[in-house]
């Protein structure tokens, strides 16, 4: 078993690193910093650390104001509240007004487990993806977290960066460079393609490995850039492998699966199986819930077998 990492460590250290060379980088938080791991940043750069209290709408607006005056704010909070509570600020103050704010949604998906649907953030891809001018990205491992943060800091414009806190292995090589709008092809395959992102990428790779043993060759794409989406990679997957499973720690509506389906329907229609959460989750830990909804290597492999068996039917 490979080592598992909490991507928040990579997030916090990379942000400190970026701030050491770019004086315009500031952080905005709401109340606690234990869930964002930004205690180190606060110590290093207290004058560039703003805590607005428990007030997410204000937090996003403040971020927009800072950006409009030349700062590069990383506005960090639990993804559920950051997106859900402040959605109109995200739409108007960031997207519409094109303010250079990096919205960092922490503990996304069902990471908050037992705390329940109020704290789960399985709607955030759908909510943010439809907002004009807003870039939407989610890293799969610490290596990608670092590379992605550097890329979005260098990019001028509003970004929603979605970070889980569930432990994941590194799925990328150390030299990997994230590029906006580009999927990373982590495994070659010709029978179908599994498109995943975030926490689900490692599980997709494990599923592909299991399928290989059964003679099914699955391509695996890490679609960490949801918007812009790597349409070329999606069309190639449809054309070359003929079937697609998408899997995300998100609702089955409007997220990665929806984005892929939009591209496939208009280019090279093939069957797509969209995996995610069908609605609000019951009580349970994050790992219990992923298991409960089949968001495991086994579940993904099962969906893949189903698609392959329907091929030509």
């Amino acid at each position: 078993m490979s080592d598992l990492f909490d991507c928040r460590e990579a997030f916090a250290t990379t942000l400190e690193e970026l701030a050491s060379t770019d004086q315009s980088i500031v952080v905005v938080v709401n109340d606690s910093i234990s869930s964002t791991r930004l205690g180190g940043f606060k110590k290093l750069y207290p004058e560039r650390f703003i805590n607005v209290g428990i007030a997410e709408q204000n937090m996003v607006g403040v971020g927009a104001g800072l950006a409009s005056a030349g700062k590069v704010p990383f506005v960090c909070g639990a993804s559920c509240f950051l997106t859900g509570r402040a959605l109109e600020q995200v739409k108007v103050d960031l997207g519409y007004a094109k303010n250079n704010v990096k919205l960092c949604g922490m503990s996304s998906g069902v990471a908050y487990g037992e705390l329940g649907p109020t704290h789960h953030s399985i709607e955030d891809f759908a909510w943010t993806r439809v907002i004009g001018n807003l870039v939407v990205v989610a890293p799969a491992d610490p290596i990608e977290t670092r590379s992605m943060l550097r890329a979005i800091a260098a990019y001028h414009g509003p970004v929603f960066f979605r970070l889980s806190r569930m432990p994941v292995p590194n799925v990328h090589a150390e030299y990997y460079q994230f590029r906006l709008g580009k999927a990373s092809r982590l495994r070659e395959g010709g029978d179908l393609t599994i498109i995943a992102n975030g926490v689900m990428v490692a599980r997709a790779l494990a599923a592909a490995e299991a399928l290989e043993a059964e003679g099914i060759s699955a391509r695996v794409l890490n679609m960490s850039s949801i918007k812009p989406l790597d349409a070329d990679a999606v069309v190639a997957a449809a054309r070359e492998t003929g079937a697609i499973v998408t899997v995300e720690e998100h609702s089955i509506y409007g997220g990665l699966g929806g984005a892929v389906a939009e591209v496939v329907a208009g280019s090279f229609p093939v069957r797509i199986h969209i995996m995610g959460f069908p609605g609000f989750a019951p009580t349970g830990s994050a790992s219990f819930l992923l298991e409960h909804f089949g968001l495991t290597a086994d579940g993904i492999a099962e969906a893949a077998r189903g698609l392959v068996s329907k091929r030509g039917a």
Partner: protein
Amino acid sequence: MTSTEAAVARIRASASRIRQRSLKMVHHSGLGHPGGDLSAADILATLYLSVLRREAGDPLSPSRDRFIMSKGHCSGALYATLAEVGILEPEQLGTYMTPLSLLNGHPDRNKVCGVEANTGPLGHGLPIGVGCALAAKMDKADWRTFVLTGDGELQEGSNWEAAMAASQYKLDNLTVIVDRNRIQQGDFTENTINMEPLADRWRAFNWAVAEVEGNDPAALLECFSALPFEPGRPSCILAHTTKGMGVSFMKNKPEWHHKIPSDAQLAEALRELEECAG
């Protein structure tokens, strides 16, 4: 013993059980918010035992007083309180946050009969309370609405939007109780966002305000008995409490907002609470 003294004694005993049970729940599930559970226990016990009009055996009686736990992260204390009045079975408390349990980390009215609102994101309870109070006025019904908020929670602007609507509509059937323990998640409120002058802020929004020792059932009971404080105005009770009240090593310590007691700490906490109750 006068009847008031007897009521206060019952509330104290009940509050002590709420504290013990909510700590056991937090310890057992390894999750939860012990500091805020302990600070709110006396308010919850007073409300449920002596203030709220409820019909035994009918938690959804249309004429019931509504209680909305806006600080939904303190679900442990809420569930333990519902067990005090027979809405939950005490044994059910052991399922707190276990897989597929009805006792989710934040209360869900579709899972627990007697929970009035699905809270958890802070700043939802008071607007819902305003809606309840408006409905009662429309129906010329005499049931009342009570909302318990945290003090850090009041940093959410939605509370103040609701506060303006409540006074505009002269909702004297609505009471907000602020659990003023001076601590939020990461730090003391005053080190984060200053809340003072809190009483004057509510007054400025045209609410009638009373301040009370919020961990003293006798004082709470007296305060609730004076409701509404002014006809034609919503009432605000600033309940001065101590976060972690009842357990010496948890008292007034921000980290106990969501820290989980070890086995030894739980035993020590239960011993202290038992001693105090005895």
